[in-house]
């Protein structure tokens, strides 16, 4: 009876970054946009994030960065994804980081980056447009 596949998105933070308000705000937005959000919260390791992503069979992993660890953790997350063959999962990042780091993060393997000040509509639209193309 179900018409359309629900989009599942894992929202998480990595390392010792203790600012989770942004992650909670976007989680709420995704819930309101009809997605199922698995909220992992703070202090995660790349291994734990990817294991949760496998168990939950998510379509999207969203990482929130706020304390300057984005260039350290991104390659580790991407590596874990590769190890687990999660090539059909979209990896997006949000938060606060220098603008010049965005191309670097994409180079490292993040599909799209939404920095501070991003509008909500384009994020949701991006997910809708790219989720199926990947899967």
């Amino acid at each position, binding site marked *: 009876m179900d018409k359309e596949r629900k989009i599942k998105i894992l929202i998480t933070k990595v390392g010792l970054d203790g600012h989770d308000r942004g992650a909670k705000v976007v989680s709420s937005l995704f819930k309101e946009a009809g997605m199922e959000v698995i909220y992992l919260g703070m202090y995660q390791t790349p291994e734990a994030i990817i294991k949760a992503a496998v168990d939950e*069979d998510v379509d999207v992993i969203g990482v929130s960065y706020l304390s300057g660890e984005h260039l350290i953790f991104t390659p580790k997350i991407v590596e874990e994804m590769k190890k687990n063959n999660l090539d059909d999962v979209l990896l997006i990042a949000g938060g606060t980081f220098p603008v010049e780091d965005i191309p670097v993060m994409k180079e490292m393997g993040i599909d799209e980056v939404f920095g501070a000040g991003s509008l909500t509509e384009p994020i949701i639209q991006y997910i809708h447009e790219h989720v199926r193309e990947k899967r």
Partner: protein
Amino acid sequence: MKSEKTINGMILKILSGDRRMAARLITLVEDEAEENHEAMKQIYPYTGKAAIIGITGSAGSGKSCLIDHLIRKFRQQGKTVGVVVVDPSSPFSGGAFLGDRIRLQSHSSDDGVYIRSMASRGYLGGLARATHDVIRIIEAMGRDIVIVETLGAGQDEIDVIHIAQTCVLVTTPGMGDEIQALKAGLMEIADIIVLNKADLDGANTCIKNLQASLSVTSFKEGEWVPQVILTVAVASKPEDIQGIDELVAGILKHQEYLHTSSAIERVRFERVEQELGLIFKDELQKIIFKGLKGTGKKKKYIKSILEGKGDPYSVVEEILSSCLITGGEKRNGKTG
């Protein structure tokens, strides 16, 4: 992913414990994908062996935190564990915020633990429609114990009783007096009643109320009498955590009772009975709505009811009698 051959391959992987494949099939089942019937048919013979423990209780009573402790204890006993945690879907957007996994993080590097979050997707009863199948899939992975956590249940979300062999009801001090404990529904289905947050004020009164309500309930000879166990699942100092060993012992004792008294046969019978009923209801509705699709009849029926020319009971009778005669042809061997 559609052909029978791919499904076969998928099932073989799940039977070998492959969590990625199991996770994928769970999604298919949740989404009611076309291939899920075939996959479940193949999975079914490999299920039915796990001990299934249900954890229910109101939102914020500490179900997830207790499950975190239970997983650790069962793992120490060398048992593999699967966990299904259900949270509600939004009635407005259909989305969900699944936040139980955050409490179960101490097992994130343990391959002997598989955890899956589920949104209820509008299904009433405290679980999700697909929970039956999801537990079967986890059983097929070879897990010894499956723990099912309901969404925050109030008084009547009792579907867990149809799935779990041992039902644990988690309550906290200040949730009401003896009269609340005497009410029908959720209070009745518990094999074990856990009074969590037992370090809070009012715990003594609460335990007296619970025991008083049990003392006026009649039990047949040899029947299981619910145990009341006090726990503190979260404390700033680890030594202040209480009652976990007692809870594990209580669960194991109830499992032993089920097997020695052969009550397990009844529990397993009820599980299949419920499954059968659910599948029947869904399939029947699918066939009937499929038959009406594109005919404009559904709209006509609703209009006639609104205009006072008919009533829902007569309409359903009319549709059923016409559908059931031609139902066999319409179905034409195709599911979904």
